[in-house]
């Protein structure tokens, strides 16, 4: 008698755990709303909107704080963030007025499908800010390359052996160009994406993320080349 009850308890427990693991996010949302009263369902949906509006404010703050973002990109991101925010606020008003669970469930679903805050809007902003940051780093390293070229020319004129430093400078300029090549197209690819294009436009997001990772590696290599060039020039006196 005792054995089977223990077994049943164990099986029930593991089945419940397996369900929770297999349906991430649903245990606290979908599974709940379908069995709740209208006021509780309203609260669930309102909370989902509130969380997104808070996230959008944070992203907007981050964009505003990113001084390297170009005026064009800033304007594009402002438009996206503003439209998304206003749309969600309007949807919240509609949800608050919903009087049936069926209507409410449809409106609540559009919080996700109509706006794609986390899967599209956030990455859009982050990728554009990241691309402009990579381009800003490229410009900074380009300035540094100019300074190093001047130093190399001066030392070469003084009869110093600048072969190693020149090689590093060549590496640096190549890395800069590669980083610019990877990052430059990203804003133009990302800004036009819209929620109704998801998930078809997800590969564009993933590809842009990959391009920025490549740019980051190139910039890292460029910094290292610049460090080595500086050390070489220092060594030859």
């Amino acid at each position, binding site marked *: *008698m*005792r054995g089977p009850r*223990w077994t049943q*308890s164990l099986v*029930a*427990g*593991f089945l*419940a*755990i397996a369900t*929770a693991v297999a349906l*991430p*996010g*649903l*245990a606290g*949302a*979908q599974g709940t709303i379908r069995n709740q009263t209208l006021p509780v369902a309203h609260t*669930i*949906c309102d*909370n*989902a909107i509130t969380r997104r509006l*808070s996230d959008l404010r944070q992203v907007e703050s981050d964009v505003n704080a990113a001084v390297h973002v170009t005026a064009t990109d800033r304007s594009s991101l402002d438009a996206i963030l503003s439209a998304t925010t206003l749309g969600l606020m309007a949807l919240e008003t509609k949800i608050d007025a919903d009087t049936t669970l069926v209507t409410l*469930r449809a409106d*609540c*679903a559009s*919080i*996700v*499908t109509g706006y*794609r805050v*986390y*899967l599209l809007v*956030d*990455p859009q902003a*982050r*990728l554009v*800010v*990241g691309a402009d*940051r*990579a381009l800003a*780093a490229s410009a*900074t*390293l380009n*300035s*540094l390359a100019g*300074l*190093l070229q001047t*130093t190399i020319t001066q030392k070469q004129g003084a009869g110093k052996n600048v072969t190693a430093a020149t090689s590093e400078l060549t590496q640096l300029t190549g890395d800069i160009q590669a980083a610019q090549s990877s990052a430059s197209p990203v804003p133009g690819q990302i800004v036009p994406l819209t929620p109704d294009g*998801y998930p078809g436009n*997800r590969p564009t*997001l*993933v590809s842009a993320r990959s391009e*920025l*990772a490549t740019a*980051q590696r190139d*910039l890292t290599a*460029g*910094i290292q080349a*610049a*460090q080595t060039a500086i050390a070489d*020039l*220092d060594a030859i006196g």
Partner: protein
Amino acid sequence: MSLGGAGTTSRRRTLIVAPALLIVLLATGCGKSATSGSSSNTTVPAAPAVGAGATAQQSADLAQAQQDLTSLNGQLRQVDSDLDTNPNTEGDATP
């Protein structure tokens, strides 16, 4: 067949309650956190060691480029976190 009465009941409750607590923890952890960052394969290099021969402007440029890289890495981590979101619920809303 009684093998302990209250002790057996207590252990049985533990068996039932423990998975329930785990479910609550899992469900809470499954929610999308807007500020959470997932692991990223990208790594930011250590701050550049500038030689004694570097000019102030060269040092400033290196430091700025390093700062840009750190910021870029942060953006990529956020993107990774966002792209990992559950496409059906984005963590909490019901379809």
